């Protein structure tokens, strides 16, 4: 992720909580949250939506660029163009996600990510063929340059389509 800051907004937190089916008023009711913790906080996995503020997010359609999902045809990318990108996007799966919480995340915070490339390794699997793992560590700092969350993500590219 490039160095683009992420404003933490209460409407975004409310919609995130709805999407995970969490009705806890600490994520949406200001009066309740003020009495309980001094204000609204974000759910533990909310930081994942930093992807919204990443200008290079490959999983967001960009105006004027072909998108690999379907329009009239099953994919917006013709077979001749960019085949490698299309297959990488469809085979890349999320293998692991770890969060370390250093302080609470609140509306009004502005986070800046610092990404550290982690290790890469391979493993053979009966279910999915050769698995290529890669790790990335993102440290999110707030407007006061304090570390708020450390996120460690492991992605895997599989040789074959994985079904249960």
């Amino acid at each position: 992720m490039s160095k683009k800051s992420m404003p933490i907004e209460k409407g975004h937190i409310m919609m995130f909580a709805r999407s995970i089916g969490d009705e806890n008023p600490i994520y949406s009711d200001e009066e309740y949250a003020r009495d309980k913790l001094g204000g609204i906080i974000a759910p533990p996995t909310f930081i994942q939506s930093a992807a919204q503020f990443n200008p290079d997010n490959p999983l967001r359609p960009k105006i004027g660029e072909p998108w690999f999902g379907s329009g009239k045809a099953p994919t917006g990318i013709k077979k001749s163009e960019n085949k490698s990108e299309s297959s990488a996007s469809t085979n890349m799966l999320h293998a692991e996600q770890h969060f370390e919480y250093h302080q609470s995340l609140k509306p009004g915070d502005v986070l800046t990510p610092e990404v550290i490339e982690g290790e890469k390794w391979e493993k053979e699997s009966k279910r999915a063929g050769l698995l290529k793992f890669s790790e990335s560590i993102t440290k999110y700092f707030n407007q006061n340059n304090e570390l708020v969350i450390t996120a460690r993500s492991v992605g895997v590219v599989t040789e074959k389509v994985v079904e249960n």
Partner: protein
Amino acid sequence: MININDIKVGDTFEEVIVDNLTRTQIVQYAGVSGDYNPLHTDEIFTTQVAGYPSVFAHGMLTMGMTGKMLTNLVGDDNLKNFGVRFTSQVWPGDTLTTKAVITSIEKNSDNVLVNFELVTENQNNIPVVTGSATALI
């Protein structure tokens, strides 16, 4: 929420985190998280191009719902660590249950550090997420 004066290692807690997962909920998660990978929302692409039987949920949606069970258990703003592995896919129609087992308890003068082992299973008892969490209560 658990009572820290009344817990021991091995105590197990569980909660149904989603009953009959809808495609609409997956769309909600895509919209808010910014992960618009068509594998999660675009049935035509996912079946005809990617070769899966249907769209499936974001791993992070399952982690988010697992996190809801955890915060219900340990209280708001008490998590220190939360990590998972995604072990199987989650499909529309799945019903998921998270189980948390206390693996250690460390009592300090003014708080208690509790470690949990986690598993979220589907309706066929297949683990879809496994992991661990630490809470300071």
